[in-house]
């Protein structure tokens, strides 16, 4: 085992996950490639969404990859930071909206 869980050198090896399960792995990568093609959303918009999700799921590989990808696709640093704020707002909101559940429970068990 490596002496660290995350190694930047592992990112380019992503494709090798097909070694142990070629069929599913290949399907995943062809789906992945299809998803990021220009469609109703531009490649840049998709990259910014990916960047925000990468932060929400806190995946260092994805943050690395989609920071560069967003720059390559022509996004600027303000757009990139705003995208992360969207992720943060949803994560924060998702925490806080459960406060209503907490308040319901308080009501239920309190005199």
């Amino acid at each position, binding site marked *: 085992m490596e002496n660290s869980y995350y190694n930047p050198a592992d990112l380019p090896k992503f494709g090798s996950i097909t070694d142990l399960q070629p069929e599913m792995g290949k399907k995943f990568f062809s789906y992945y490639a299809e998803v990021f093609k220009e469609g109703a959303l531009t490649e840049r918009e998709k990259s910014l969404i990916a960047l925000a999700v990468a932060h929400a799921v806190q995946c260092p590989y994805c943050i690395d990859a989609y920071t560069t990808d967003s720059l390559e696709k*022509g996004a600027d640093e303000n757009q990139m930071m705003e995208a992360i704020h969207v992720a943060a707002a949803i994560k924060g909101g998702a925490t806080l909206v459960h406060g209503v559940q907490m308040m319901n429970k308080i009501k239920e068990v309190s005199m």
Partner: protein
Amino acid sequence: MLKKSLQAQALPLATPEFQLTVLNQRSNSGKEFPFFGEKLAQHELFPLKPTGIQIFQVNVGKMCNQICRHCHVDAGPDRKEIMTRETMLECLVILATTSIDTVDITGGAPEMNPDFRWFVEEISKLGKKIMVRCNLTILLANPKYYDLPEFFKAHNVHVVSSLPYFAASRTDAQRGEGVFEKSIKALQMLNAVGYGQENSGLQLDLVYNPAGAFLPGSQSSLEKEFKRRLKTGYHIEFNNLLAITNLPVSRFLDYLLESRNYEAYMEKLVNAFNPIAAAKVMCRNTISVGWDGFLYDCDFNQMLDLKVAAKHSQHIRDFDLEKLSTRHIVLNQHCYGCTAGAGSSCGGETV
């Protein structure tokens, strides 16, 4: 921000020999990249030969009013190498006697050459298409340049201008403090005389190159975004966006090494090698003339002092179309920059 060229700082990387040594040695972590020539050989493109000479690119000098971080010319106000009228005359003789139809004038800031206007006028008399690589800020650098848009218009010059981004942040990081604002003003001056406007016949293209150690994204989608942002933000119109990859030469190589991005960047270029782009590299239809009249396969080879491999035709005064058309193009590891992804040339993507 850079204050001087690498040459004025007397840095080892200012010399072509040192750059070539870096490009050909194992990286710090022991990584070795396949030789570019071998890569071409795998696709039956070696030795690489011209398909015909259509573009005559002339570098009229290394002097520039800017000192961009990524500049492969290592240009700047401290560079004194400049093409003389005598060498220009030798170029005109060749242009008059061959069917080469396009002249691409570059630098430095070509407009700073004292014979620039004369040279453009003479080429124009020969009925050749003229492109000028204008850094935009030169138009505002001195009152003597204020009428350049009119001059360009008078000779139907195709203006190709660098603008790495549609916002100040990244433009200024690459090209210097305040460059974005001045570039916007210059673009508005060009628009005002008709450049980039529909049906004016006056072509204004923008060059995008990434402000950092990453590759350009798709040219067409960047073009859409640039058009949208420049139009809504500044009422600027232009024709095409040319997306150009930064090659690991001179100041961009210095930047890569200094920021410890060199190895990852080279790896990216090598992994993105595209044989279709390799077949369409610009050196196959271009000849590049240096400020002192020597001939090269392209402006990058010029900066690396890799002269054309055409015996007895290495200088404009010995220009021999036959020999040059059958030459073997001189390749090295920087060439990976031309063949990555959708390819890159002075005219943008090639694929």
